[in-house]
């Protein structure tokens, strides 16, 4: 986002979860977690999503748990 615009469309990334004042991310909340995985089912890295360290580690933990419970995919259907 910031890189390609070459200073013109530069916009500082911020942690959306801090912005929403989320205290703790729950592995049962798959609706929220889908925002932090790619269409392939990968966890979006911090450098892309701009999440803070605290929330990123919570996301990672939650996504992994949600995958075990088949709430989220390990990988998307068509790449299997």
């Amino acid at each position, binding site marked *: 986002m910031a890189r390609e615009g070459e200073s013109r469309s530069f916009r500082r990334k911020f942690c959306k979860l801090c912005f929403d004042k989320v*205290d*703790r991310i*729950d*592995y*049962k909340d798959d609706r929220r977690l889908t925002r932090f995985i790619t269409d392939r089912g990968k966890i979006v890295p911090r450098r892309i999503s701009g999440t803070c360290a605290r929330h990123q580690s919570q996301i990672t*933990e939650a996504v992994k*748990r949600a*995958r*075990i*419970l*088949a*709430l*989220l*995919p*390990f*990988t998307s*259907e068509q790449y*299997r």
Partner: protein
Amino acid sequence: MKTYETTIIFDPGLEEARINEEVDKVSQSISQASGEIVEVQRWGKRKLAYNIRKRRDGTYIHIKHKSPPELIGEMDRRFRLNESVLRHLTVLAVKESPRVEEPGRPAEPAAAEAVHAVSPNMEEKV
């Protein structure tokens, strides 16, 4: 005694009565071990993100309970042996930190949220 959250995915073909039976069995084993059921949530039939044992859906049951740690291993063993359980996961419940909004210092020290028992049948993945 610790508070745990156990989620169980049952075979979608199981009828209501059978599931109730299974849930009763679990709650009995908890109370026998002098534990305590805090809450039972029935999420009902949900679509699975990927097929487990060729099933597309599963019936989800979520139990919050206080149990002695020794019971968790035993519970895990039973779920593995139980053919109608597609998947299960037990984690330590997060203590709901009293939301004291101190300026600059968010209430945090309840972060003791470690995974205790995870046992998916790995061979079904990918």
